[in-house]
């Protein structure tokens, strides 16, 4: 079994931007992670567009930008029909990078790892004032 592939499905240009960022940082090939926008697409057309990007016999994660909405609905419909596919909703850049680094893992383990990475990557780090840290103001 080859490494898991990914399709990012999002609103507007989000998917293209996210995939571009992952390629820039992780240096992955064009077939590993492919973007798809829902712009101007009917629900049926979006499902057809995702199907066209699937490769027979290769496990694929369908990443969507958020949990609700047309992208997630299309992805979940396909996952219900197609073995070897999984959905991750609310994907962000740390999740995508984790995917790029660990896509040789078995599908179940990879999905669990990516969901955990997504949850832990949303933070608001406390930043003390410069004076409190003994630093001069810039």
């Amino acid at each position, binding site marked *: 079994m080859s490494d898991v592939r990914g399709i990012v499905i999002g609103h507007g240009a989000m998917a293209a931007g996210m995939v571009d960022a992952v390629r820039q940082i992780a240096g992955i090939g064009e077939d590993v992670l492919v973007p798809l926008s829902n712009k*101007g697409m*009917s629900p049926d057309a979006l499902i057809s567009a995702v199907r066209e990007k699937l490769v027979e016999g290769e496990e694929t994660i369908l990443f969507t930008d*958020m949990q*609700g*909405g047309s992208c997630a*609905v299309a992805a979940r419909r396909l996952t219900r029909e197609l073995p070897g596919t999984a959905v991750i*909703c609310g994907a962000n850049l740390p999740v995508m990078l984790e995917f790029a680094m660990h896509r040789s893992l078995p599908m179940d383990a990879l999905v669990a790892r990516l969901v955990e990475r997504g949850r832990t990557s949303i933070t608001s780090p406390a930043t003390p004032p410069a004076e409190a840290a003994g630093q001069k103001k810039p």
Partner: protein
Amino acid sequence: MSIILLRVDERLIHGQVVVGWGSQLHPDRIVVVDDDLAASEWEQELYTLGLSGGLAAEFVSVRSARERFASWKSSGDRIIVLLRDVNALQQLGAGDFLAGEQVNIGGIHHAAGRRPVLPYLYLNDDEAAQLAALHGAGVRISAQDVPSGRRVESTEFMAIERRS
């Protein structure tokens, strides 16, 4: 407050409705009028996943919608009513049922046999005829995808449709 938006959008509950219109209209409830969804718990879960902020969703058949429409109009809740396509709107509006109501056309996209009218609105001959008939029956129809977009009255977009 009653029905604050009666919308035709083939994507039903999605970002433009929940975030775009929701942030402007502050609905308490979304009612999806669709015979198939009303009969499928899995489909309902598919569309309600991701709803937040206490916004409730309910799925009813066209027949049930016609029975309950008056109660929605007099409800204390602020309700968005969604329909999948023009055919469903025609069924709901049969017999001048929707005369005087305002209908928002928000998203009917390209498919075989449909011609472009607006960037988010494509119609085939049957759909154009159904909308014209509803307009003739006193339904006030306009197209607008998001609150910040321009509202296009049916007289304007039907003229575009006839030229396309």
